[in-house]
């Protein structure tokens, strides 16, 4: 059962130095109930995909293609229609809890607010549901926490508050955008635990946007890898870690601590001036002559797909 389909998704940004294509022809099916991790290095376009789904991109962005959710194209919806989907049917946990939470509203109000906005429930009446959400996410003194403000909580606690607010309407899809970015080891462990809780307690499909491969290993059922705005590999999580196909994915896994911190050679790709042919070819240890000339398609076989001429 698929619930979210991206078809030839493109996102262009008009910048002073010219047009920048941050997402280039992404095609992805997110199946109902699964945890799909969209991974890649900073600047590869993965967060742009998440923001495009929810219509949260800035004014200089142009989005093309189709984002199909429950047989409707989100890109063809008016802002009013999209506002009904955003939060209620597709929730998002943004990457920086200290910026995503309102510093002058208490925690209880911020978790209950989606019920007020989408369901017309009085703020006072949201209290039992807010308390229940906080308990499920491991808060102990839940009554005492309702009147607390974000500055009184640690980063990890605020992250859980964001998760509680995102889940209170029980959306069909939850997008978690870099939930561990910039957190230290202890907090990363806590967030990983929260993500596992979401996975086990909810029927929501989870779209995890991350560069954290350890989090991916723990949470994801399936992994899609992005490089330079394109999907370069899709695989079930197990085979992704045990037998990656794309040279970029292999290089990425080689840079993990347990594999000896081998860096990917060459400078990161510039989206303002991407190379012709395969985007990874200037850094690829397995490149052939054709790689600089021919742009590879995403070649699919079973549950796996890879964008590399080695598999054409």
């Amino acid at each position, binding site marked *: 059962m698929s619930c979210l389909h991206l078809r030839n998704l493109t996102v262009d940004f008009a910048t002073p130095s010219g047009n920048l294509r941050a997402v280039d022809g992404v095609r992805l099916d997110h199946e109902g109930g699964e945890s799909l991790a969209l991974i890649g*290095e*900073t*600047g590869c376009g993965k967060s742009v995909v998440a923001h495009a789904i929810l219509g949260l991109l800035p004014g200089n962005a142009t989005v093309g293609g189709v984002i199909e959710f429950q047989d409707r194209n989100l890109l063809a919806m008016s802002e009013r229609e999209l506002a009904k989907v955003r939060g209620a049917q597709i929730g998002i946990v943004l990457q920086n809890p200290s910026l995503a939470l309102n510093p002058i509203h208490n925690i209880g109000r911020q978790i209950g607010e989606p019920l007020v906005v989408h369901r017309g429930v009085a703020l006072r009446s949201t209290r039992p549901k807010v308390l229940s959400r906080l308990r499920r996410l491991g808060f102990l003194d839940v009554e005492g926490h309702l009147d607390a403000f974000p500055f009184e909580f640690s980063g990890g606690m605020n992250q859980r508050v964001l998760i509680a607010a995102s889940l209170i309407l029980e959306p069909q899809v939850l997008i978690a955008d870099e939930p561990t*970015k*910039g957190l*230290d*080891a*202890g*907090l990363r462990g806590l967030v990983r635990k929260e993500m596992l809780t979401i996975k086990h307690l909810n029927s929501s499909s989870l779209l995890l946007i991350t*560069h954290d*491969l350890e989090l991916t290993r723990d949470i994801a059922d399936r992994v899609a890898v992005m490089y330079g705005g394109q999907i370069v590999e899709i695989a079930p999580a197990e085979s992704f870690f045990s037998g990656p196909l794309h040279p970029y994915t292999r*290089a*990425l896994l080689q*840079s*993990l*601590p*347990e594999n*000896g*911190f*081998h*860096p*990917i050679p060459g*400078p*990161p790709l510039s989206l303002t001036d991407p190379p012709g042919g395969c985007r990874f070819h200037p850094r690829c240890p397995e490149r052939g002559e054709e790689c600089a000339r021919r742009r590879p398609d995403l070649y699919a076989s079973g549950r796996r797909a890879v964008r590399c001429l080695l598999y054409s």
Partner: protein
Amino acid sequence: MSAVLMKAQDVCQVFRSGWPARRTLEVLQDINLKVRSGQTLGIVGDSGSGKTTLGRILAGVDRPTCGTVSYKGSRLSGLTPVQWAAFRRRVQMLFQDPEGALNPVKTIRRSFEEVGRLAGISKSETVVSDLLRTVGLSPEILPRLPRQLSGGQNQRVALARILMLEPELIVLDEPTSALDVSVQAQILHLLKSLQRQRNLAYVYIAHDIRVIRFMCDQVVLLDKGGVKFQGRSEELRPDVALSAGV
């Protein structure tokens, strides 16, 4: 064995809060360590174990409540203003968040000029360009703002800016924890190569024991402000590290 650059003896740090100093929190107790020229000393521990506090004391950013820190045999507390200025150039600190370390409204070129002005040195653009190349960046980034660069590029800029001051010791406070794994690997290899080329000493603060093992000769494992293990990094047993939350 190479010469001792820095030595900490019986260092402790106590933070007081409330009025009149009703609550005290002892964040470091009885720290003794040596940093040798051209070598890397790792400081590892769980969140709140006191590793950043210790790093700030070694870099001269904070003063310890008790104990002494010496640099090349001279106590920091006894340095004259001229000696202090020289110490601050020779011992530098690289922070976890490169974007926080660079002024967001100043171009990379201005950032270099400002550090040069504050340190009383003048470096030509050719020297700055060479420094950027040393850390794997193109001089084309000089007119850009930090937000126009990636996290890894900004961390390289921060490192190049430090190298401009020709330091002997750099305190690296979780320099890769905000970066992608692939960029982390690049920065770690870059740091090792710079150490070989310039005989730099590092104090490397991290919570990840794998990074410490890769980078460090000696390691100090902190647990609740005290030293739980001190010795060669390969001698730190996993069960001891785990018992300190690492």
